[in-house]
């Protein structure tokens, strides 16, 4: 489990996050949602240690990340898998080399086993036949899948996924969401997904955290979302006509039950 306590972060004079308190549960998909620029990605980057918060702390299984020695932090990071918004694959390496990279840096197995493991990960994300291609030769969806394969290569305990559906068509988005769900169940990871895609939230979200204006404005489950009386969250969720219709549909269903 990852816990965030009283976390605040600012860049220069701009206060990006204010007093965030949150829990991210093991074996569940924890989704951080919010408008663009609300501080979701900054929060995720504070959690993985890419940004140093001005106040507060991040606890990995009860241990403060920022109080750890450099070697301890490295050990934690070896247990983190992260898919970046732009996939962040290494341009100069092939798909296979990208997935093998963390294994080569930290794995203790022979090269043949590393290749086997990388192939298994690629198989897991259904992208076996592209292993000799370079990232620039892949579509956005394929790059995301390779990014996920690289993220799970070291059997991570914590899986961070930043905007997995951005720039993808609805069908590929659903495939990526399903993959995240399957991997979370399979590896029992603490999965944190940063998204503003409400379809994704309704499909796979379990523990949902809504960030608004740099503050944690709401937490709850997917089922609790539709009945929330938080005005900001309502505006965010029901901005699209699809969700407005879904709300009407859900309300109709519940009144019918009565």
């Amino acid at each position, binding site marked *: 489990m990852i816990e965030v306590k009283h976390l605040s972060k600012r860049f220069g004079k701009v206060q990006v996050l204010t007093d965030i308190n949150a829990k991210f549960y093991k074996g569940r998909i924890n989704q951080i949602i919010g408008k663009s620029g609300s501080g979701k990605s900054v929060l995720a*980057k504070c959690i*993985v*240690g*890419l940004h140093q918060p001005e106040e507060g702390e991040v606890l990995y299984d009860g241990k403060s990340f920022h109080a750890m020695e450099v070697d301890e*932090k*490295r*050990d934690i*990071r*070896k247990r*983190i898998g*992260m898919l*970046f*918004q*732009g996939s*962040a*694959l*290494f*341009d100069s390496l092939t798909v296979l080399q990208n997935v093998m*990279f*963390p294994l*080569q*840096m*930290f794995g203790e197995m022979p090269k043949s086993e590393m290749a086997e493991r990388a192939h298994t990960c690629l198989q897991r994300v259904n992208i076996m036949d592209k292993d000799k291609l370079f990232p620039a030769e892949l579509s956005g969806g394929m790059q995301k899948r390779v990014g996920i394969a690289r993220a799970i290569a*070291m059997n991570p305990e914590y899986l*961070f996924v930043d905007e997995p559906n951005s720039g993808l068509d609805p069908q590929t988005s659903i495939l990526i969401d399903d993959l995240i769900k399957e991997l979370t169940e399979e590896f029992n990871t603490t999965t944190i997904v940063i998204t503003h895609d409400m379809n994704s939230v309704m499909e796979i979200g379990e523990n949902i955290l809504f960030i608004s204006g740099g503050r944690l404005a709401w937490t709850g489950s997917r089922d609790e979302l539709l009945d929330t009386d938080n005005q900001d969250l309502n505006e965010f969720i029901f901005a699209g006509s699809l969700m407005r219709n879904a709300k009407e549909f859900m309300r109709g269903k519940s009144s019918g039950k009565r």
Partner: protein
Amino acid sequence: MGTLAHIGRYFILLKATFTRPERFKIYLNRTLEEMDLLGIKSLGIVALLSFFMGAVITIQTKTNIDSPLIQAWVVGFATRQSTILEFSPTIIALILAGKVGSNIAAEIGSMRVNEQIDALDIMGVNSAGYLILPKVIATVLINPFLVIVSMFLSIFGGYLVGMATGIVSSVDYLQGIQSGFIPYHVVYALIKTVVFAFVIATVSAYQGYYTKGGTREVGISSTKAVVYSDVVILIANYALTQMLLI
């Protein structure tokens, strides 16, 4: 951000760069790749530039000392001295700052804006060491080789143009390049080369590593890498010359 803050951050980056590599063999392979990319692939431009600069030095020297009081072999002597003391180590370093420095800054800068450096950090890889150390070692090892090639080609270029135009005889030129040769001058040139190579690799890497923004900023970092490398090379050139030659 002020100049002092930049200098401080540069040294912090150097400290991170020179820490123990996670996997020695991976760093060794990367160093060999960088020696090819940053060194061997610069051989063509270095050779071309050296040959013609040697030719120009010979012609200009002959034009400027065309006096019956000055012996003909002085042309060869002046070409050799100009080449070894200044042209090959310094001018080639300035040219490499343009070619290699911009390459380093653009590569690392692109990795920064595409979150590839963040990806390395999250994996627990020391991104500064992994990306910068092989480039520093590669340039420090390969640049002296480039400069030695440059010295020979420049002197040879002067010889060929002297023969072709008839401004200096073969005998006089060969006598000139052997006269008053001080081996320490080559050592001085190589010391400068190593320092300049370090400056090019680290200043350019610094500019790339701390790039913020998008592709436009990568271009700005690349330009800054060349400008600041050149400025530091010129200052270091003066300091080293005063320390090592006087």
